[in-house]
């Protein structure tokens, strides 16, 4: 079939690949995004992973647009089905008149024919896996390349740049490159024999972009290196392993010692030791690992050891749904560990923010000498997008004692000061010798749990030290970011959200303001604990608050109630593991339209 003259003009286009674990969706997905990025488009990728290595159903969403994409769309312009489960999972999201490319030998349309018909879906079937095998018997992942080339043809986009991207990725692997080039050819032919070019893509203004395509985990890892990270202690776990894998890969170059520990307990305790010795140190994990680190988190808070802890949340509780998204570890991050101990919790709203918040996390940890959580989630850690190359920011290491000064003639590691922050000294600083200790202690860090516990002075010290430790929160909350409004001023309805759902809510607000006769805005938070005191002022500007968070018990709403006596009685709940989309949020929010 030859190209028609009247092609559908497009500004934004959403594609979903569905297949089995092992089909190479995620790695090819990244290639395709790099390609679109190179052309100057904004790109967004999101994987639907499973905790199974082979088989099962996984998917990869890819979206590109002329304007910035903040979140992936629910609705699909194109679905590429490499197994029947793709239809089970995604056919409901096909737009009217969308296109379905599918492998005719693996995908059974039968049960979906009616739905596809009713939506006027254009079907493009072929033996994608056989074509792949024809090129190379053992490399089924070529089916991804074939369908991608078919997609490019459909969009009327050049495949040369795509081949360049492949060349770069597989540099020195001539065989693989050769196979892929054949696969691209095959894909184009295949589409030419079917629909040909159907769309006309608006060309972005941005040319020769220097943007990079990274995911949240990589942004955090890069942010950590920019912050001066020297020691990462970690134990593998989805969806945080990638941080360790990326930093391992560049360990020597970046000067970051990466220690894969025997378990999460060892990991965080190594990090505590490294921090004590004077380097910036971090640990990363997800829920089960955080649970294991609980005791050490309290120790770090008690000993006032700076520490950055990444928790990439996944569906819980327990093993839960380990490759899905949930925002359900907020309360457990704030309250992890027995007794009362201060900490900071930051939840990045985007990939860019993940990088910059990591730098802030390290600075806050050092300046206030406490553990700082970065609360990412599967949705942010694994999403990919093009971002402006990151830049370095000021590194603030806080109060470090290297010898007698007027203010600190004698080193007291836990000296009681106005803002609660005491000087730190690192070995081998002469005169700085002290013992880090998790028992209550005096200003010199002398333990009270031995002979002095029970004397009246120990009561006094415990009270003073508790106040000192918590006083730091009072001071640091002043430099935390407050919630950010987006949308109409003084809107009828405000959707409150936190962390990584920012992009989805933002797109929903735009939609709602355009498509309803109410006015809408959002108030999004990244700095969750301690909530800056001035937050109340923001809340007072809301007419009708609606909370959106991806958990069951309404944890952030609970915090607002507890800390500000501010009630949010209406909420949008999402539970089930899939990351939210603007259309889901808009649909739910519509309930309050005109109310």
């Amino acid at each position, binding site marked *: 079939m030859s190209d028609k003259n009247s092609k559908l003009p497009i500004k934004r286009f959403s594609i979903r690949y569905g297949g089995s674990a092992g089909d190479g969706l995620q790695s090819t997905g990244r290639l395709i995004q*790099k390609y679109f*990025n*190179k052309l100057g488009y904004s790109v967004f990728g999101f994987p639907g992973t499973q905790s199974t290595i082979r088989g099962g159903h996984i998917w990869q969403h890819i979206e590109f647009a002329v304007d910035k994409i903040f979140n992936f769309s629910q609705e699909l312009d194109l679905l590429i089905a490499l197994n029947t489960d793709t239809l089970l999972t995604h056919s409901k999201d096909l737009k009217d008149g969308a296109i379905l490319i599918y492998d005719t030998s693996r995908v059974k349309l039968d049960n979906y024919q009616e739905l596809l018909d009713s939506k006027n879906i254009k079907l493009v079937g072929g033996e994608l896996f056989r074509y792949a095998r024809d090129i190379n018997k053992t490399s089924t992942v070529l089916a991804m390349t074939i369908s991608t080339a078919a997609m490019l043809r459909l969009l009327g986009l050049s495949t040369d740049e795509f081949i360049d991207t492949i060349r770069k990725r597989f540099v020195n692997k001539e065989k693989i490159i050769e196979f892929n080039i054949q696969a691209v050819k095959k894909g184009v032919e295949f589409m030419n024999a079917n629909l040909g070019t159907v769309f006309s893509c608006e060309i972005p203004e941005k040319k020769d972009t*220097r*943007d*990079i*395509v990274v995911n949240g985990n*990589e942004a955090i890892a*890069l942010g950590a*290196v*920019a*912050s*001066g990270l*020297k*020691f990462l*202690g970690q134990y593998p776990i989805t969806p945080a392993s990638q941080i360790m894998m990326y930093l391992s890969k560049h360990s*020597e*170059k*970046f*000067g*970051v*010692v990466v*220690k894969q*520990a*025997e378990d999460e*307990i*060892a*990991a*965080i*305790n*190594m990090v*505590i*030791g*490294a*921090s*004590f*010795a*004077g*380097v910036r140190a971090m640990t990363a994990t997800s829920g089960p690992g955080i649970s294991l680190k609980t005791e*050490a988190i309290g*120790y770090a808070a008690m000993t006032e050891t700076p520490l950055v802890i990444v928790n990439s949340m996944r569906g819980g509780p327990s093993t839960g749904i380990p490759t899905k998204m949930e925002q359900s570890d907020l309360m457990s991050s704030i309250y992890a560990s027995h007794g009362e101990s201060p900490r900071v919790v930051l939840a990045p709203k985007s990939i860019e923010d993940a990088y910059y918040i990591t730098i802030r996390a390290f600075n806050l940890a050092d300046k206030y000498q406490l553990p700082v959580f970065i609360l990412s989630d599967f949705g942010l850690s694994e999403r990919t997008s093009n971002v402006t*190359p990151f830049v*370095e920011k000021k590194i603030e290491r806080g109060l470090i004692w290297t*010898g*007698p*000064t*007027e203010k600190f003639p004698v080193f007291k590691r836990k000296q009681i000061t106005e803002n609660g922050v005491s000087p730190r000294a*690192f*070995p*081998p*600083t*002469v*005169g700085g*010798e002290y*013992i*880090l*200790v998790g028992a209550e202690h005096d200003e010199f860090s*002398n*333990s009270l749990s*031995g002979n002095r516990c029970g004397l009246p002075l120990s009561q006094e010290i415990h009270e003073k030290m508790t106040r000192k430790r918590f006083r730091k929160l009072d001071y640091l909350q002043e430099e935390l970011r407050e919630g950010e409004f987006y949308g109409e001023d003084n809107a009828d309805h405000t959707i409150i959200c936190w962390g990584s759902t920012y992009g989805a809510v933002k797109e929903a607000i735009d939609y709602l303001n355009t498509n309803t006769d109410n006015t809408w805005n959002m108030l999004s938070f990244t700095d969750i604990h301690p909530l800056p005191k001035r937050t109340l002022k923001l809340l007072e500007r809301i007419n009708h608050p609606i909370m959106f968070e991806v958990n069951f018990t309404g944890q952030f709403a609970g915090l607002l109630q507890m800390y500000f006596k501010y009630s949010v009685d209406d909420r949008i709940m999402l539970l089930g593991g899939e990351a939210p989309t603007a259309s889901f949020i808009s649909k739910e929010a519509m309930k309050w339209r005109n109310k």
Partner: protein
Amino acid sequence: MVIQLNTRFKAQGKKPNWCPGCGDHGLLSATIKTVEKKGLLPNEVVITSGIGCSSSFPHWTSAYGIHAIHGRALPPAIGVHMANPELTVISVGGDGDGYGIGGNHFIHTARRNPNITYMVMNNQIYGLTLGQASPSSQLGHITTTTPEGVEEEPINPIALALGAGATFVARAYTRDSKHLQMIIDKAMDHRGFAFVDVISPCVTFNKLNTYEWFNKRVYKLEDHDTSDPSAAFGKAMEWGDKIPLGIFYQIDRPTLNDKNPVTRNKIPVKEPLGFNAQNIDMEEVFDEFR
């Protein structure tokens, strides 16, 4: 304002709160003597420990120290050691701390072979928590948690260390301070993980494995091939009428820092922070993502 360089390892103004007669006093003084003899300075040494009577050890020295949580003496030691390989790192603890709750770190640290000396004050009892059976308590020992006597085979720390791949495995006894000092000295000289099981009687809660009990059983290993794992393992099995003291096993193997891509060349704590300061071209880093 100048700070006097301190060369004495004994803590000023603090006295160990161990019971009079507790074996731990012996390890403390032998360690202080040995490190001083070696010309180390307190500011260059970091002593880590867990929780237990024995684990209060760092407080009675003037060195830097980490009195970590229960069972976690070793992981922070690794953190310190890799962040600043120039420091001398010593870890100490009790049998409960090191062989019980901390057992996993013990075996993994052994195979990692960091240049750390680890000395366990083994009194075969949980002292600080008032006398429960520990993993090294003897079969049949009647304690507050084993009214009919310990029913579980005790851990054999020497055999365990060998099985875990430790490169230096020794036993000493706090009553024989000379020998103990010699062992500490060799352990600290060893490049790699040096483990010493230190018999350190608890006079308050262990009325079975007393000084008298040990005095008539301990003897020093002689004519023993410390490079032969099977021989070492055979000797490790000896515990009863005869209890060998000395070095069971010692071999040379690259240390953790020898092999780590960063620490083999650099002292991390002395390196500048960030990409630019380290002369890393960020553009090159970003290129991977384009």
